[in-house]
């Protein structure tokens, strides 16, 4: 499909009106928000769902016999069902609500990992992981003596599949890998990765933080064992996220935290844990967060998702082309298969200086290592500037970015 045709079916200017934040100017200028990969802005529909949750249907869940508690419990479980159908999980009990992707990965490391790995066992990750898919495995390594292996990427930032396959050895017990890199935008060949690993009996955890907002995710078609993502990158609230796990795996795993909600019965001698998903949801959950996430998914489903994705990719291609035309701009992450993220630097100007200067033009980008220092090391830079696109961005936003980079070059030219 051509970029024009997508634009006909998806109208970002109209979608933008759903997001109250864009009503305010920044430094007197139109807000150009290019940091959706860090966190997405929220549509009115999500904000209102949260407001409604507190104003009309709030109580603790799964506890009270009274009307409001029942309503709150129903809404909370309805959100679980919305998430289930969004990623096409087989059953609702395979959806665990957590604080975010970070907590989901830590949960798997500390429960599944501790129960299943022994010294010398290997966890295979890639060179383009977010710190949250590195550090939990390092902590596990230090606790139980397992080994962390890293599959390399090429100069375009694409995973080298043959190297990945070579690293799948007799001691590999888990593959934990991103679906889409937050620092570079690289989309990994996840279906192939899962096929290669599972052919050897190795389970796969997929970090879907960046993929969930931008790609179709069908966990049954992928066949992955775990899939994690955060609500706040999916136009939902922060503090809520999802761990999907195959029921059989989740059932066999020990619980993560202990407390209320996660038990069937407690005496001082013995506690019987609740069945999944509640076994992994100790304590009062983020009720309005789950409701807000459900509302975000409902909002997305009201859009033409295919056309929206095509639009985001068109923005990425346009930005790459325009940046490539500027003098002294280097692009990082030029894999053939990539999502709506562009990472770059400007010769002679530190990314933070670029970030500060274009911020004054009303353009919000991320400048730094994007919580992926190994990626920066791979490309021999301390930091990059990253522009990431969401459904409310327009071609005009890309033009503002280019204008901002030019301005930074002017300022530094003295």
């Amino acid at each position, binding site marked *: 499909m051509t970029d024009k045709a997508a634009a006909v079916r998806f109208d970002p200017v109209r979608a933008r009106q759903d997001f109250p934040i864009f009503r305010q100017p920044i430094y007197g200028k139109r807000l150009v928000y290019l940091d959706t990969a860090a966190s997405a802005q929220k549509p009115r529909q999500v904000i209102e769902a949260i407001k409604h949750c507190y104003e009309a249907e709030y109580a603790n869940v799964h506890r009270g016999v009274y009307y409001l508690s029942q309503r709150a419990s129903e809404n909370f479980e309805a959100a679980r069902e919305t998430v289930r159908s969004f990623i096409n999980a087989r059953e609702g009990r395979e959806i665990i609500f957590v604080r975010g992707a970070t907590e989901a990965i830590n949960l798997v490391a500390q429960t599944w990992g501790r129960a299943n790995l022994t010294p010398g066992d290997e966890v295979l990750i890639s060179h383009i992981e977010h710190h949250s898919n590195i550090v939990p495995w390092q902590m596990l390594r230090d606790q139980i003596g397992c080994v962390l292996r890293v599959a390399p990427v090429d100069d375009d930032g694409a995973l080298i599949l043959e190297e990945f396959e070579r690293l799948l050895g007799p001691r590999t017990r888990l593959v934990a890998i991103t679906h889409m890199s937050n620092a570079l935008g690289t989309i990994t060949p996840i279906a192939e990765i899962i096929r290669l690993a599972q052919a050897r009996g190795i389970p796969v955890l997929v970090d879907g933080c960046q993929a969930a907002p931008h790609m179709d995710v069908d966990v049954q078609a992928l066949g992955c064992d775990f899939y994690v993502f955060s609500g706040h990158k999916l136009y939902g609230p922060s503090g809520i996220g999802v761990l999907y796990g195959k029921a059989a795996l989740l059932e066999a795993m020990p619980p993560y935290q202990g407390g209320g909600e996660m038990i069937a019965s407690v005496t001082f001698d013995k506690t019987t844990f609740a069945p999944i998903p509640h076994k992994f949801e100790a304590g009062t959950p983020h009720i309005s967060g789950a409701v807000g996430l459900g509302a975000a998914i409902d909002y997305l489903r009201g859009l033409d998702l295919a056309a929206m994705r095509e639009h985001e990719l068109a923005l990425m291609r346009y930005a790459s082309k325009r940046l490539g035309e500027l003098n002294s701009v280097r692009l990082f992450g030029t894999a053939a298969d990539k999502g709506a993220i562009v990472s770059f630097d400007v010769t002679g100007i530190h990314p*933070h200086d670029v970030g500060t200067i274009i911020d*004054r033009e009303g353009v919000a980008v991320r400048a730094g290592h994007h919580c992926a220092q190994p990626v920066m090391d791979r490309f021999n830079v301390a930091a990059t500037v990253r522009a990431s696109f969401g459904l409310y961005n327009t071609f005009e936003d890309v033009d503002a970015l280019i204008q901002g980079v030019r301005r930074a070059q002017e300022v530094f030219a003295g």
Partner: protein
Amino acid sequence: MMDIRDLYQEVILDHSRRPRNFGRLADANCEAEGDNPLCGDRVHIYLRIEGDRVTEARFEGRGCAISMASASLMTDMLRGLALDEVRALFQHFHAVVTHGESAEACDWIDLDKLNVLSGVREYPVRIKCATLAWHTMKAALEGKRTPVRTE
């Protein structure tokens, strides 16, 4: 609103492009390392102290224009100062980049140089870029071994 050029003044750009006193100091007897994990800015401060005076100051590092210019300006100013003058200068600098008022009278040195860094006051997230070299220098004087972090 400030113009962006109030932050990126010519002196700052000049010092960041051609940092003074850049490179290792072989006979340093006081040194420390600092980093700013948010930006990846990194600086190593080398001082030579004889008696109660700084006789030489140099630095190595990488980072944004603000952090490099600040280190360059600082090392320029330190040379020849007595240690209590260095401490007073640190206080003065801190005031300049945070609220502008300084209780320290530093009439023994030309402070105009420091005022070019006052622009960061308007950019709260960038203040630590300017202060990194200074905190690292202070840590060096205090004999701290663990790297300094500005956060």
